[in-house]
């Protein structure tokens, strides 16, 4: 474990009285490797190491009997602090219906998360509407329709092939039927696909969502930052749902995206069933990343 490796590195250094730059480098290297193996973005790792360097080998550590564990505690605390956020609940706008738009790369879990979100919100007394705005992927509308049917959720789609028109019509339908919130499921897309990113911008202009949630697969590696920054710059993200955390991925993408975009992680996906949506716990995520 990281604690063991640091213990070994630092035990040799204790009783030396004063640490040399090289000694500190050795400890920082262990932390760096652990974070990179957890898929934290390499630039984020650099900045993180620089920010904890002084504290991680300060007096409290070197006077400890278990300096390795002390360092891990400092790293864990700092990760927890970075991952956390005040703003982790969903927007509750004054005007009804609330509008939540789900976006992200292909296969990240948007359609499933849309249904999960609807079930979650219904439990707190809401009457959500699911809008199927993915007209590209074969069977996408059918997938959301089936999920809605099996959970008795209100569902809207159009025999139309324009996602913008579908979203606008869905919003009208919700207002008419007093459904709130409206959850828009969009097609998976690459952040470098100008046409599809522009489509998201158009939906945003027409619908004015209260939340634009990026659905991010927890097993994403170094590319997480590229995608998140691009989505945030082009469309604007108000929050993240981190999916497939029921696996054994360390999930460093969570730290990367939070550090670079500042977006709060609002929920986690922990399975394929519609009830597998949980709040995001920064402290649990921090220990998971550290392995």
């Amino acid at each position: 474990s990281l604690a063991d490796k640091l213990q070994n590195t630092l035990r040799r250094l204790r009783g030396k009285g004063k640490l040399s730059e090289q000694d500190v480098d050795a400890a920082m290297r262990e932390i760096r490797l652990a974070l990179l193996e957890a898929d934290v973005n390499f630039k984020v790792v650099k900045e993180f190491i620089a920010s904890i360097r002084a504290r991680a080998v300060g007096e409290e550590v070197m006077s400890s009997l278990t300096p390795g564990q002390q360092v891990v505690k400092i790293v864990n605390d700092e990760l927890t602090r970075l991952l956390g956020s005040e703003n982790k609940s969903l927007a509750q706008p004054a005007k009804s219906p609330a509008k939540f738009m789900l976006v992200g790369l292909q296969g990240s879990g948007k359609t499933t998360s849309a249904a999960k979100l609807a079930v979650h919100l219904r439990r707190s007394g809401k009457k959500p509407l699911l809008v199927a705005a993915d007209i590209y992927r074969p069977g996408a509308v059918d997938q959301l329709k089936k999920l809605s049917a099996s959970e008795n959720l209100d569902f809207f789609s159009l025999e139309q092939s324009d996602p913008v028109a579908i979203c606008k019509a869905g919003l009208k339908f919700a207002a008419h039927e007093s459904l709130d919130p409206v959850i828009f499921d969009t097609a998976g897309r690459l952040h470098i696909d100008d046409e599809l990113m522009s489509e998201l911008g158009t939906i945003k202009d027409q619908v004015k969502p209260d939340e634009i949630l990026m659905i991010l697969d927890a097993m994403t590696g170094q590319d997480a930052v590229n995608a998140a920054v691009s989505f945030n710059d082009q469309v604007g993200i108000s929050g993240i749902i981190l999916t497939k955390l029921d696996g054994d991925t360390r999930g460093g993408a969570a730290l990367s995206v939070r550090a670079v975009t500042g977006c709060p992680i609002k929920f986690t996906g922990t399975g394929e069933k519609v009830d597998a949506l949980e709040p995001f716990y920064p402290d649990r995520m921090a220990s998971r990343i550290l392995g």
Partner: protein
Amino acid sequence: DLFGGGEIDEEFYEELEEILVSGDVGVQTTLKLVEELREEIAARRIRERSEARELLEDILGKLLQTAAEPVTPEQPPLVILLVGVNGSGKTTSIAKLAHFYKQQGKKVLLVAGDTFRAAAVEQLEIWAKRAGVDIIKQQQGTDPAALYFDAVNAAVARKADVLIGDTAGRLHTSDNLMDELNKIYRVINRNLEGAPHQVLLTVDATTGHNAVAQAEKFNQTLPLTGLILTKLDGTARGGIVVGIRDQLDIPVSYIGTGEKIEDLAPFDPRAFTAALLQ
């Protein structure tokens, strides 16, 4: 460009590490590759960065070189099974493979083996229609092993050249689902000698270190013959396949380069290496 010019110093190795790590080659594999490069550079007394590039491309090229011709049985049908974690691109890749074989004039039969997820069968049905191939399916909730028993018989009876089967997405950490996959494999194998002749694991190019754990666990469940590295049309470089080849000796058979039926290509180690080192 790291290899543009100049001498080989510590800064060179640090920058090279960053290029490899940022491409998801993974920490341990990166350290190993850089160490190997250092040794070669010393042994050959290389001074110029441009020469180091050739050396590294050689090392990677050798490691990634395409395996021998993929298995094709003496008697049809060739049976191909696609497996992989949720959302990695199995169903879409099957559509692409169907198109690929159909273009060669083969008689292709698909198996809608994901009997779990909402509208999974419908998704593959639409693709089958677009590719102009037949599909074997049952309703949602059917036992996939039983479905495959029938599908293999059907493929033989209908004299199909290629049978390509879908499976439900699953995480390698789910023992139940991995047992189910093992059962599907054994049912196919018992029903047709030598089948499945190809077992392809889809790996999303955006995946980090977890892809190695995925490949390892899936490979313990049924023998993988190759990977399909999907979504390489994004900005991710898919470097994790280097680690998978290095640690598990599983080659990349194909790459996915988009969402259309033609967006499949055989793996080209040289093109991949060039893109990785950008």
